[in-house]
């Protein structure tokens, strides 16, 4: 990549190159094949950097009509989910909006249990905007579902449909309560699966021979309690030989929490069998993963360890979890149960809820005494380790949102200017829009 290539570029192309520069190396302007013979002046570099930054800003917001969030698509989903929105309610705890709920029977609402926090202070917002008491009557821990009873006569229940084949690529929409629009829409990303996993509490790395070496052990975890030590080599679990780190990770992922496991280790020249009880995987990832996953918004406090879920790519906030998802026919195919990452929201399949409902009403799932924590970013913050970026607090997120909004406004302006430049360029040169691409292969010239 030579900087000189930008000189001959048109006004539009140069902004395009600047965009690309910004994308490729936000770090600093660098040359692929060594600095050119004649170094551009500092002023030139500064100017290019300025352009690159401006162009990056222009990229922040795509033109609405060609984005997934276009008005047309939104209207269609608003329409197909209108019936379900009549059965979607807002739930508050101590006055703060915590979740959505799905009216499944007269007076009965299903929602995400752990998001409520204090089961004794739940209220539902009525159509007239009043808060009425909502009583949690059942909690199903495996699915993080709560059943709520309210003394309201005007609740419209919706039928939970259970189509047999829900395939990746199927559209799903998440309505808000009637009159409040749409929370979002997306497609099914992964068909039905369980996200439970066994947890040991060790950090692993390959040793010189590629075997599974324990790098460190976390205290207060199954491994820590059982006495597994750093530098131990794990050779087998439950008699299944473990030859590499990935294999052990995969094996643990296939186990459930609460299960007993025999871990065979090599410590020096001794071979030991250690009994552990696998725990629930804590909702903690590397700081890097959390940072990337929260790029785009907050996540639910509990976002793993579900017995059966569909994964979809709708961008939702934790307070928009608990309501129904509908297909293009308006059928309720599931209830959102977690915002679990930048690319993922999870929903419990409709048939799972239908099967549980009688027992939930019959008191077979008593509410636990312990109050589960709700989503506060502090609660979801992972361990900060030296050398790893720090997760964001709410203030940082709010500041970033403001920053992005400001950039979006600028971006619109820049896009408009770029379009203008491009049009006037095309007029003056008589160029078609396609060959603006310098040096890029066209299908006809490909081997």
């Amino acid at each position, binding site marked *: *990549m030579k900087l000189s*290539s930008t000189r001959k570029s048109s006004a539009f*192309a140069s902004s*395009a190159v600047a*965009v*690309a520069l910004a994308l490729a190396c936000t*770090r600093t302007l*660098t040359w*692929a094949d060594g600095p050119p013979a004649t170094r551009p002046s500092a002023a030139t570099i500064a100017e290019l950097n300025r352009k690159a930054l401006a162009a990056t800003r222009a*990229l*922040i*917001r*795509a*033109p609405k*009509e*060609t*984005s*997934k969030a276009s008005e047309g*698509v939104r*209207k*269609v989903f608003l329409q197909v989910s209108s019936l379900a929105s009549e059965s979607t309610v807002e739930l508050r705890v101590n006055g703060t909006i915590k979740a959505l709920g799905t009216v499944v029977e007269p007076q009965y609402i299903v929602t995400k249990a752990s998001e409520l926090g204090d089961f004794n202070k739940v209220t539902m917002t009525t159509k007239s905007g009043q808060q009425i008491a909502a009583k949690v009557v059942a909690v199903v821990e495996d699915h993080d579902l709560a059943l709520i009873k309210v003394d309201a006569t005007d609740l419209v229940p919706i039928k939970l449909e259970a189509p047999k084949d829900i395939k*990746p*690529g199927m*559209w799903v929409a998440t309505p808000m309560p009637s009159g409040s629009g749409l929370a979002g829409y997306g*497609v099914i990303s*992964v068909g039905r*699966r*369980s996200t439970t996993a066994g947890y040991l509490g060790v950090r692993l790395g390959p040793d010189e021979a590629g075997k599974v070496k324990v790098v*460190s052990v*976390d*205290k*207060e975890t199954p491994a*820590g309690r059982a006495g597994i*030590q*750093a530098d131990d080599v794990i050779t087998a679990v439950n008699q299944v030989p473990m030859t590499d780190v*990935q294999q052990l990770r995969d094996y643990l992922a296939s186990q459930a929490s609460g299960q007993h496991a025999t871990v065979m280790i090599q410590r020096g020249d001794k071979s030991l069998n250690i009994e552990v009880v696998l725990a629930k995987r804590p909702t903690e990832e590397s700081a*890097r*993963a959390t*940072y*990337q996953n929260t*790029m785009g918004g907050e996540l639910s406090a509990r976002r793993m360890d579900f017995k059966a879920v569909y994964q979809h*790519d709708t*961008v939702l906030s934790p307070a928009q979890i608990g309501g129904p998802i509908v297909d293009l026919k308006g059928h309720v195919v599931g209830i959102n149960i977690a915002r679990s990452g*930048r*690319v993922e929201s999870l929903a419990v399949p409709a048939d799972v809820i239908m099967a549980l409902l009688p027992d939930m009403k019959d008191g077979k799932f008593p509410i636990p005494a312990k109050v589960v924590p709700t989503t506060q970013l*502090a609660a979801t*913050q992972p*361990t*900060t380790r030296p050398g790893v970026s*720090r997760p*964001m607090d709410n203030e940082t997120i709010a500041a970033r949102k403001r920053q*992005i909004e400001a950039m979006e406004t600028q971006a619109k302006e820049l896009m408009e200017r770029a379009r203008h430049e491009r049009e006037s360029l095309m007029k003056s040169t008589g160029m078609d829009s396609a060959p*603006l*691409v310098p*040096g890029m292969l*066209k*299908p*006809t010239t*490909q*081997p």
Partner: protein
Amino acid sequence: MQLGLKSIRVSAAIVLLAVSGVTWAEGGPATAPSTSPASQPTTTPTTAPTTQPVVRYVPPQVVPRPPHSHAPVASPNTVEELETIQAQVEKVVPTLMSATVGISVGAAQGSGVIVSADGYILTAGHVSDDPNRECTLIFPDGKRVKGITLGANHIVDSGMIKITDKPGPGGWPFVQMGTSNDLQLGEWAIALGHPGGYRVGRPPVVRLGRITHNVFGATATISTDNTLVGGDSGGPLFDLAGHLIGINSRIAPSTSLNMHVPVDSFVAEWDKLAHSEQWGPKPTDSPRFNVPSPPKMGVGVDELPNNAGLKLTRVDVGSPADKAGLRVGDEVFKINNQPVRNTNEMLQILLQQRAGNVINIYIRRPEAEDQMLRVKLAGATKAPGQK
């Protein structure tokens, strides 16, 4: 970490998408790319008086796009139009998944896609990274095969890998490459990949979005509103016909801004990539990736509100902190008479120390007097696979 924090402040910064990110592992046999039908190298004599013939690798045949108007694609506004899109995605996705792999190379994990029966894989440059390293490719059914990293263009972030295991009859499953320079704004696109790295029982994850920008030139980039995250790096982006148009690369804070390497970049530079050439500035060349490691205490920390210090969230068994008697929940507020109000201050102090030094660490513990413990620091541990 000071520099880590800096990386957060660059809020519009583009974030690379490999899972454990930076890995520096080297080694693995330098195997020459093998030759087989789909990607036949052609041998041509050079004009120079040399005995070495020049091997030139050519890309698999691309599927040309049907001619179109270059006008942005109109938004659907009926249920029927969305049903058509849905039916098409559901139809092509199973085949596309079968050629989408998880990639494990050194300590990093990413994604990739097979584009030829003889096992050429396109991925992101920051996933394949240095050439001639052994790597593992994981198919959606969990089957693992070995491969070797080939070339990478770190300017556009394109990378190439070749499967070294022998395929069964009929070769490896692969996808058709399309073209990217003629993508229309608003065109629908399917992204696949392994967010967070390959997970047992989870096939490649489907995301649907639209082309929002197509930037050309030496540093070409496609952007879409197909949401991506770490681990998706190197995963494929397809048009609705199921032809490969790009490779997942990096993200910005907005969920609607995700970047992909255009497939045309791979086609144009196929020979160089297949010859294991590597060029352009690596993201890992940036100073913020080359931070000195402080000596080790063996703890995890969370910052307390209002700069009140740090709370220990993890104490490694047998670590210097454990030996000194530190416990999970302890609140650190001072080290060696210097206040510790946040992570950065602790790191600044630790960076001044070396392994073997003893530091005085002042802690607050519920229902106890404030106390001072002495921690003998250990050497910094490097992540597995680090150079």
